[in-house]
């Protein structure tokens, strides 16, 4: 009766497929369950930028390793369609002195960990993006290895490779319960029937708190909307992603030629709303055309929204749940999960398989909030 799996992965975004692939490559037979289609949640809605310019050692290390893995991904996963990895850098702009001091500390940290990052004057920034307005710009940092990837393709690449290695993927299937007996996971209930398993991996993104609750667990994650738009495609004019933490803005030209841009809004309510608003369109247009004036000529073809899966310190929760044996988290990425997924998927699979992880991830455990040991990342949009 019923079926069994070595692990059930709940959520078919980039975290879920990366963990499923890494488990399958260690000889386990995971079952990935996704409520809609793969990448239908936050992954498929994200801007899919990847950068190593972070302000905490943990993020720099995770991002650096992940970029190395993205570079080899098509080959490793034998993916013929291509993940469209464009490595033309991230140009991060500083608009006041205090922020500039923070940037210089970040650069020292990044360089100490092997990230090739350059410190630029405003004029130096304009050599990289010639139509950049320098109004208010104090300086900039630039890492040429950062870039952009097609998130749908990356997810498909991982999923296909996982299935070839023996993983199973159930799309359009809901997980409705997690069965816990004597403090251990014994199975999950789904809309396609019960599955016996000793391991449940929560990769549910903005639904992460609800999936945790199914196992009687509480984690301090919450969903928050972020809006984004895309323009018509034009010839290649902008190499790097341009970011300003002051404005909460990012803007990138994809290899396809379209510009993708978004704007963070700290006042967004905490829920799963993915509606698009006129107000976002107006604020986005006003700020981006001041910063990158020629973009005023580009036509917006589509706007949409996705949910960040937030934690109180904007850092992921990665590792085992201390209260229930067999329950694992890879959640709470707070808007930068796509770019960290190759490495976080590997680390979590190593922990689940009983291997020594490549990096110590104990500090990313869910118990840090009770201890007050938060990892505050200064560089988030």
């Amino acid at each position, binding site marked *: 009766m019923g079926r069994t799996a070595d692990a059930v992965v709940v959520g078919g975004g980039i975290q879920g497929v990366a963990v499923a692939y890494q488990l399958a490559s260690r000889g386990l037979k995971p079952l990935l369950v996704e409520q809609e*289609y*793969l*990448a*239908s949640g936050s992954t*498929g809605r994200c801007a899919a930028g990847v950068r190593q310019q972070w302000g905490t050692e943990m993020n720099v290390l995770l991002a650096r390793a992940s970029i190395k893995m993205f570079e080899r991904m098509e080959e490793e996963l034998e993916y013929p*369609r291509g993940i469209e990895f464009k490595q033309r850098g991230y140009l991060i702009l500083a608009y006041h002195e205090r922020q500039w001091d923070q940037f210089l500390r970040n650069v020292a940290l990044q360089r100490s960990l092997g990230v090739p990052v350059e410190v630029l004057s405003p004029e130096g920034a304009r050599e990289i993006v010639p139509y950049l307005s320098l109004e208010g710009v104090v300086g900039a940092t630039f890492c040429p290895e950062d870039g952009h990837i097609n998130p*749908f*393709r990356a997810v*498909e690449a991982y999923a296909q490779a996982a299935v070839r290695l023996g993983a199973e993927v159930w799309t359009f299937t809901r997980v409705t319960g997690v069965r816990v007996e004597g403090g251990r996971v014994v199975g999950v209930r789904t809309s396609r029937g019960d599955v016996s398993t000793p391991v449940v991996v929560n990769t549910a993104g903005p639904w992460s708190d609800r999936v945790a609750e199914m196992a009687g667990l509480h984690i301090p994650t919450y969903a928050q909307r972020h809006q984004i738009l*895309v*323009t*018509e495609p034009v010839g290649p004019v902008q190499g790097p992603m341009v970011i300003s933490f002051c404005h909460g803005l990012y803007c990138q030209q994809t290899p*396809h030629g379209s510009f993708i841009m978004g704007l963070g809004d700290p006042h967004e309510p905490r829920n799963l709303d993915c509606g*698009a608003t*006129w107000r976002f*369109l*107006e604020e*986005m*247009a*006003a700020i*981006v*055309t001041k910063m990158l004036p020629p*973009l*005023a*000529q*580009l*036509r*917006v*073809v*589509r*706007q*949409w929204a996705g949910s960040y899966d937030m934690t109180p310190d904007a850092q992921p929760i990665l590792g085992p749940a201390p209260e229930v044996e067999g329950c694992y988290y890879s959640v709470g990425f707070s808007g930068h999960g796509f770019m960290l997924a190759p490495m976080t998927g590997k680390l979590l699979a190593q922990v689940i398989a009983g291997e020594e992880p490549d990096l110590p991830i104990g500090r990313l455990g869910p118990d840090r909030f009770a201890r007050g040991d938060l990892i505050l990342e200064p560089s988030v949009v």
Partner: protein
Amino acid sequence: MPGGQATAGGEDRVVICRCEDVTLQEIRRLIGEGVHTLDEIKRLTRAGMGLCQGRTCRHLILQEVSRLTGVPVEELSLPTFRPPTRPVKLGVIVRAGGERHG
């Protein structure tokens, strides 16, 4: 497919999405791989993501999914409609905002 083996119907030359240059062959190959929703086909091929936002190709792809899976067109779901209704320049949005806020 590399090598471009033409099929009897010449489907590799039939363009279904004119904005993003997606051929009937690509659509049929994905459906054959088990990709049966318009949402997924759109995201993997960009069919329907161009300037016309799928006004031309949406129904052609629906018919193709229906024909190859046996599911009636009425039972297939359409991708989410996303604003703006027509492409609009960022500069025009800024001017409209300026006028509204005086």
